[in-house]
């Protein structure tokens, strides 16, 4: 496509609107739809390279899993007392990333925030792929993944139900509900766009592919009526999930008695952290995509500005969480809580606590300034810092709390093994493999919602609505 660093000077950055100048209904559809319908050999060069790299990562991931299944969880660095290591850290980290997608697609829809339209599709895709990456960790950390169906309540020969009083069991339902609703919401939102692709495609097999997926969408009033109902219901279902899923994940820790876990601030603090690193990941994904595919007029500076503000707000809630943990340690007058804070700030893993503070709290304070929120390279770097910081947060919670609890005689240490690292880093392979497929096969920006935005804003910017009205042209 026409995007490359060379034509960058021609790009007009819009900072005050959700759409660039001179957007019409037709230009929006063509811009987004053609990314998918362009033959493979004409896609931007970044795609095949990225796809192959991701596929190699996926193979490393599969190899790590095969080794894990044949040898067992002993290949990881976990042991008593640190029986939860990278597996749980990565699980919480990945699932947290997903929350931004749901927040953008559901909560911002209910609040009628127009700025979600250009980013919701990609963010929802990110949610689903992040949940997939996350869901694998608890399944494999059991050590005997072929018995994972024991987690489900089914009338089996054991003659008993799973332990419904355990938050680990609540996790099963929280995560599976989250995955189901996210996939449904995503797919329902895709249907009108799939119909547009069906109508724009020239190859009969491509037409059939999108035709089958678009469920016979015709763009009639009845179709739209049903679509609006369905998407509103699903938004209503997703909204509590943004809050509930990570609350329940925080219960995995908070319901126990371990110093550093047993804190009432955990649910809101986890949810804010999830939104925080989720938005950071959205920015990390959208910046390169926007550049490679030249989407500057659809994903504008105003989007980045607003996402920066959301990150700043949720980051401050997270900072409040850190402060309140310190406060509890002092105010409770509990020696174990107090020692937990001393151990975090001055113990053998103190470097990771201070890394967390720097990446998660200090650096993101730059987001107070619009100058940095609208500076793409700096915003991108801040987002990477937040993702690293949020990973360290889970590391601090999991490892630093476990390795020194009550009795000094049962203290220990934790060092991740090579396989811990490969199963973590190569899970990006799975994530990006899916994401590259998504970018290639599905419209990464909601075409009909942006067309709707063009229509709404046509008065302000004088863009003439000349293209076909939204929906299929069939």
């Amino acid at each position, binding site marked *: 496509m026409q995007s490359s660093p060379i034509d960058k000077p021609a790009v007009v950055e819009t900072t005050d609107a959700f759409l660039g100048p001179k957007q019409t209904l037709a230009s929006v559809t063509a811009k987004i739809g053609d990314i998918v319908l362009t033959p493979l050999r004409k896609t931007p060069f970044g795609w095949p390279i990225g796809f192959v790299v991701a596929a190699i990562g996926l193979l490393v991931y599969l190899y790590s899993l095969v080794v894990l299944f044949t040898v067992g969880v002993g290949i990881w660095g976990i042991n008593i007392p640190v029986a939860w290591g990278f597996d749980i850290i990565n699980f919480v980290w990945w699932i947290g990333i997903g929350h931004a997608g749901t927040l953008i697609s559901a909560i911002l829809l209910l609040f009628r925030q127009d700025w979600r339209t250009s980013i919701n599709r990609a963010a929802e895709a990110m949610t689903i792929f992040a949940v997939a990456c996350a869901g694998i960790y608890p399944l494999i950390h059991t050590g005997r993944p072929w018995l994972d169906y024991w987690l489900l309540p089914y*009338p*089996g*020969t054991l*003659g*008993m139900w799973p332990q419904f009083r355990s938050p680990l069991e609540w996790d099963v339902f929280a995560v599976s509900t989250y995955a189901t609703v996210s996939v449904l919401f995503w797919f329902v939102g895709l249907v009108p766009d799939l119909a547009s692709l069906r109508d724009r495609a020239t190859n009969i097999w491509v037409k059939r592919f999108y035709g*089958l997926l678009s469920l016979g969408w015709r763009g009639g009033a009845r179709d739209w009526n049903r679509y609006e109902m369905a998407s509103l219901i699903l938004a209503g279902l997703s909204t509590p999930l943004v809050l509930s899923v990570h609350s329940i994940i925080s219960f995995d820790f908070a319901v126990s008695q371990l110093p550093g876990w047993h804190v009432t601030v955990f649910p809101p603090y986890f949810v804010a952290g999830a939104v925080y690193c989720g938005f950071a990941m959205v920015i990390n994904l959208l910046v390169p995509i926007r550049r490679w595919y030249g989407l500057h007029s659809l994903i504008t500076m105003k989007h980045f500005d607003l996402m920066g503000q959301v990150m700043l707000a949720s980051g401050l809630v997270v900072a409040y969480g850190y402060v309140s943990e310190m406060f509890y340690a002092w105010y409770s007058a509990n020696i174990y809580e107090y020692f937990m804070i001393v151990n975090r700030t001055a113990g053998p893993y103190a470097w990771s606590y201070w890394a967390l503070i720097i990446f998660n709290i200090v650096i993101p304070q730059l987001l107070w300034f619009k100058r940095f929120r609208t500076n793409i390279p700096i915003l991108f770097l801040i987002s990477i810092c937040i993702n690293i910081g949020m990973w360290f947060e889970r590391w601090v919670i999991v490892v630093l709390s476990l390795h020194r609890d009550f009795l000094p005689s049962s203290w220990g240490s934790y060092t991740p093994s090579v396989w811990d690292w490969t199963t973590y880093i190569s899970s990006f392979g799975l994530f990006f493999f899916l994401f590259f497929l998504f970018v290639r096969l599905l419209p990464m920006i909601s075409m009909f919602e942006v067309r709707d935005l063009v229509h709404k804003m046509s008065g302000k910017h004088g863009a003439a609505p000349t293209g076909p009205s939204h929906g299929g042209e*069939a």
Partner: protein
Amino acid sequence: MAQIFDRRANTLVRLTLFVGVPLVLAILGGIWYLFGWSDWHRDVGVPVAQPGGGFNHQLHVGLKLDCRYCHNAVEVSSSANVPPTETCMGCHSQILTQSEKLAFVRESWETNTPIQWNRVHDLPKFVYFNHSLHVAKGVGCSTCHGNIAAMPVVAKSKALFMSWCLDCHRNPEQYVRPRDQIYNTAWTPPADQLAQGKKLVEEYRIRSADQLTNCAICHR
């Protein structure tokens, strides 16, 4: 514009989504469920081959040999005990001393190598089971092992599902019997078993279902 799909497409998609997919799931789930609950995959009723000619339980119980003559630890130990060759030779140094069928027993005795019997009831290693406790609390041999007196070659008579263990741990009155009937392989529950059982549960001071279904009762 030409049609992409022909008339049948809608019906086909609906059939697939609403009939085909549920049907396939139901069939796979059904197979998995029935297989999981089947006695067949737990080898119930399949006689386990033993070294030599094996030990004929039918014959020996028919001769009024008490279970405890060979399984002598059943009242005092978690393991009922599989007897050593010496126990066999206690009788067979006097009886049937030249029998061909007992050649492997004599050989074991002469060479001082134990006979390697094959285990029939193989509980997983993470299950703690104590014979002496069950016998003391009124669980007879035949409740779990079936009528051994009718088995020339012993086979499992129960699939040993955990739900089967829990069935008794939840309601022991269904199965407990008077202490003098423990080793009676032909014992059948009386008509008023539940009433009798309730009395025995009290008499034996069998603990409540709450305690008996605690994970740590069996998984230690």
